[in-house]
């Protein structure tokens, strides 16, 4: 390579758009000829502001676009925590706040926008915030800790996000909106009213047509309320301003660049300002005089600017301002000509006030094309409808089918290849199909996620068209998934493997499908797992109600609910272990495992344990194992709730529950979380007000932290949500799929679980609760039932013709004062002289 002068690009601002500019520059080879310096004022690299509210749940790291803190490309230098004081187009220099002067060849302004705070009296009192950065959220969280009431000024998209954050922080929350309806930019009056009803049903107060005249100052100098014009004052110790945004164009203004009338750096279609070496992208820019307050147009501007710097022809000529989001569990979408401003446009409306669903289609005068629409309460059709607007394809004969409940929706509309599916990243259906064919990926669905369902369907359709069905059958004997099997067993009322395989399968089953069907029958019927022909379906652990170990012996785990045990019972366990010569070890689930029991010893061991009041711990089953607890408020000086009592109650409630994989729970008595509840499939953590419920955690090879499903629950609600959550999991998860990957596999992920469990959006709640009640009512200890049944005991022999002769393959050595299995190197013979019993 010939030595050549390398040019330098300085990017001011490291938000989502600045980051996308750098990504595109690296990907498209701009860094072959240019060094890039990115200056960001925030202390951390770019992060996902679209899902800012989830910061409370997942933390800053999960939102970050650059968790490593730097770009892989060494030609990109990232300077964080630094403000730009100004720049000089004459000398092409940028002055940083530390005094450093940086020369540039091209300057890219990506300074974004700032929340607009109306200049009402008291707007700067302690207790007043904006909602834009992680630091803002941290400050709001701190203030909320000592407060009980909060208010958000502004009922737009961001304002409702902020209101949700206040609600999650446990505040009684008010939303104050100047306009006659919520989300006035996106939805019409009827849609706004539907949305308001949803939000009010969650306990928030919505005030529309409400002008804030002042923030009221309390005796301590902090905000205590909002004075409204022509309405009563609202109490509010935390006030969040979310009344729109303003482009941050001060640097450009000071440098003498042209600005748009309503603010923003005036740029051409490629992003160039009135100075040809200064560019502006994202919310600080105003292409053609208009600013765009969404991330997708900002991304498009970033790509176009990189293209222009490479000499390409790209142009930004406006953006699809369609929006789809989920606010507090409510779908809201708006696309195309949502307000029917096109001359002659017709409206087609479906409204169900009971279900809280409002859908409107805006259709061209001749009825052939979809122009736009509004969806509230159910936006599942958005993935199909928005591309129909963009691509202009003809409407079907019965356009109402597109919005009627359980309409054909996604299935029947063939999108043309050029239809844009992901508007955030400008990915068309053709791009997705081409990537699937090449085994590559696109960015579709990676920003706001609203097109994920549609993208998945396009990929599945593509594979189906190639004759490659995505095969989720459990094994060769059943062309069904576990969920489908669960449903056919329930619908047909099957009670045995024979019935299931004869009606729905082929062959005689295998080690995969038999335990699945055994588990499904156990979940639905709750009979004894060794009853009738069900015994031969069980894996060996379930078949002998114990855990097989490497030498063919078993371990025994009696249930110790919540990890609480009396000295007398502890002594019994010790005596049993001593008398049968068993190895003992404390488990991670706060109980005691006894190893080295020969199969024929199991009934005697359990007779002793049952007599002492123990019951099966189900350590051998894909079933509830333990609910671990810390010592809680009874003893602990920090505890705020009785975690031991709750753990015992939950363990006794769900004991014996058969599930797709093992299930573990935990209860912590305070936020110190000593029970490690968030490493469990369900974790409960005490708060001052009640209990927070976390779901989807596990340890093991792929550890996962449980995430917050619902907060500050009373005991009764907690148990209702747990009943629903566990039963929904049991019904719909795949074989051997733990709760964390199960949640990830659902369309909508954790939000979907919340819809079903908390919002009861499918109306399944009472059915799931009834299924759990049936389990609780019919529970019995399967070990006690086994030792009381001579027929079941018949199986527990070493040899059918020599029940008392120990298997010679099993032998032990001594290790640290206890037994340890000795490996046998081959088949062992006792010789021919051993007398054996008669058949």
């Amino acid at each position, binding site marked *: 390579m010939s030595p050549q002068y390398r040019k330098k690009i300085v990017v001011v601002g490291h938000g989502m758009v600045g980051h996308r500019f750098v990504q595109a520059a690296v990907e498209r080879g701009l860094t072959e000829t240019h060094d890039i310096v990115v200056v960001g004022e925030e202390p951390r690299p770019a992060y996902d502001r679209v899902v800012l509210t989830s910061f409370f749940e997942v933390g800053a790291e999960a939102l970050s676009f650059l968790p490593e803190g730097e770009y892989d490309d060494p030609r990109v230098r990232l300077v964080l925590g630094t403000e730009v004081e100004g720049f000089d187009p004459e000398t092409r220099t940028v002055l940083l706040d530390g005094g450093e002067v940086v020369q540039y060849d091209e300057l890219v302004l990506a300074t974004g926008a700032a929340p607009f705070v109306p200049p009402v009296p008291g707007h700067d009192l302690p207790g007043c915030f904006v909602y834009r950065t992680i630091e803002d959220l941290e400050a709001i969280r701190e203030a909320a800790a000592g407060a009980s009431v909060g208010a958000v000024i502004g009922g737009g998209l961001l304002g409702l996000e902020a209101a949700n954050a206040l609600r999650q922080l446990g505040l009684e929350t008010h939303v104050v909106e100047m306009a006659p309806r919520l989300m006035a930019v996106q939805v019409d009056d009827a849609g706004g009213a539907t949305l308001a009803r949803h939000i009010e049903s969650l306990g928030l107060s919505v005030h529309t047509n409400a002008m804030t005249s002042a923030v009221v100052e309390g005796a301590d100098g902090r905000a205590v309320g909002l004075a409204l014009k022509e309405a009563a004052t609202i109490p509010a110790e935390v006030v969040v301003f979310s009344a729109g945004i303003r482009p941050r164009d001060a640097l450009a203004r000071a440098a003498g660049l042209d600005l748009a009338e309503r603010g923003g750096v005036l740029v051409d279609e490629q992003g160039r300002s009135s100075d040809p070496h200064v560019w502006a992208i994202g919310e600080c820019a105003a292409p053609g005089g208009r600013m765009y307050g969404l991330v997708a147009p900002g991304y498009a501007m970033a790509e176009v600017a990189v293209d222009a710097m490479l000499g390409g022809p790209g142009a930004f000529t406006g953006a699809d301002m369609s929006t789809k989001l989920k606010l507090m569990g409510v779908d809201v979408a708006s696309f195309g000509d949502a307000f029917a401003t096109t001359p002659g446009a017709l409206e087609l409306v479906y409204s169900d006030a009971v279900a809280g669903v409002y859908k409107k289609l805006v259709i061209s005068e001749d009825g052939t094309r979809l122009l736009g629409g509004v969806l509230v309460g159910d936006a599942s059709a958005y993935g199909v409808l928005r591309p129909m607007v963009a691509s202009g394809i003809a409407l079907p004969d019965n356009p109402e089918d597109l919005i009627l409940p359980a309409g054909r929706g996604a299935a029947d509309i063939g999108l043309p290849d050029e239809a844009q599916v992901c508007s955030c990243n400008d990915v068309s259906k053709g791009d997705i199909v081409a990537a699937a064919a090449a085994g590559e990926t696109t960015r579709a669905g990676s920003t706001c996620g609203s097109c994920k369902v549609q993208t998945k369907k396009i990929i599945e359709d593509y594979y189906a068209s190639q004759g490659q069905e995505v095969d989720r059958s459990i094994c*060769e*004997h059943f062309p069904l998934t576990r969920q489908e099997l669960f449903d056919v067993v329930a619908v047909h009322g099957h009670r045995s493997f024979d019935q299931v395989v004869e009606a729905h399968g082929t*062959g*005689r*089953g*295998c*080690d995969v*499908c*038999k*335990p699945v069907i055994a588990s499904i029958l156990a979940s639905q019927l709750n009979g004894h797992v060794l009853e009738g*022909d069900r*015994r*031969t*379906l*069980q*894996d*060996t652990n379930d*078949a*002998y109600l114990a855990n*097989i170990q*490497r*030498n*063919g012996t078993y371990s025994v785990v009696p249930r110790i609910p919540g990890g609480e045990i009396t000295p007398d019972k502890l002594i019994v366990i010790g005596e049993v272990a001593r008398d049968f010569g068993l190895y003992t070890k404390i488990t991670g689930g706060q109980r005691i495992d006894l190893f080295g029991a020969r199969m024929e010893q199991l009934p005697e061991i359990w007779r002793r344990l049952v007599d002492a009041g123990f019951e099966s711990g189900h350590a051998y089953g894909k079933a509830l194992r333990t609910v671990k607890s810390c010592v809680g408020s009874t003893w602990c000086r920090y505890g705020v709730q009785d975690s031991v009592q709750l753990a015992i109650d939950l363990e006794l409630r769900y004991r014996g529950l058969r599930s797709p994989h093992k299930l573990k729970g935990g209860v912590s008595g305070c936020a110190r979380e000593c029970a490690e509840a968030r490493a469990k499939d369900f974790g409960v953590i005490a708060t001052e007000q009640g209990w927070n419920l976390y779901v989807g955690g596990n340890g093991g090879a792929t550890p996962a932290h449980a995430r917050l499903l619902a907060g500050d629950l009373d005991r009764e609600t907690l148990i209702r949500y747990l009943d629903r959550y566990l039963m929904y999991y049991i019904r719909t998860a795949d074989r051997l799929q733990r709760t964390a990957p199960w949640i990830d596999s659902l369309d909508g992920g954790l939000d979907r679980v919340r819809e079903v469990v908390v919002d009861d959006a499918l109306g399944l709640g009472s059915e799931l609760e009834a299924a759990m009640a049936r389990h609780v009512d019919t529970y019995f200890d399967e070990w006690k039932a086994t030792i009381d049944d001579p027929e079941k005991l*018949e199986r527990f022999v*070493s*040899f*059918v*013709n*020599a029940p008392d*002769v120990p*298997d*010679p*393959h*099993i032998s032990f050595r001594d290790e640290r004062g206890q037994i340890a299995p000795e*490996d*046998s*190197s*081959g*088949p*062992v*013979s*006792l*010789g*021919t*002289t*051993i*007398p*054996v019993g*008669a*058949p």
Partner: protein
Amino acid sequence: MTTSTDRSTYTAVCRLDQIEVEGGVTALVDGAAVAIFRTHDGNVYAMSNYDPCSRASVLARGIVGTRGDVPFVASPMHKQAFDLRTGQCLDDADVRVPTFDVRVDDGIVLVGPPQEHP
């Protein structure tokens, strides 16, 4: 009754109804642990109870089923499948478990000499 029947090479081990359909039992035959299985189509098979993959005496406790037309037992330890007819491991061509002649007389299961397989 003694360990041998009148056909001196066969050992009576149990009644047929002591073996569940698609289940197995372990019998002690000439000092060795033998797994005896009963399939859905009424056949009875016998093979060594020793699983060479896990080196433990456990095969009778495995799940019995079919792979295509092949009746098999899956080792309860690590799930390797063994053809009930030949003892051939279906997941590893180099592994085979010895099998035994077996017959049912008057509802009594009798285990005979080891089988030869080509």
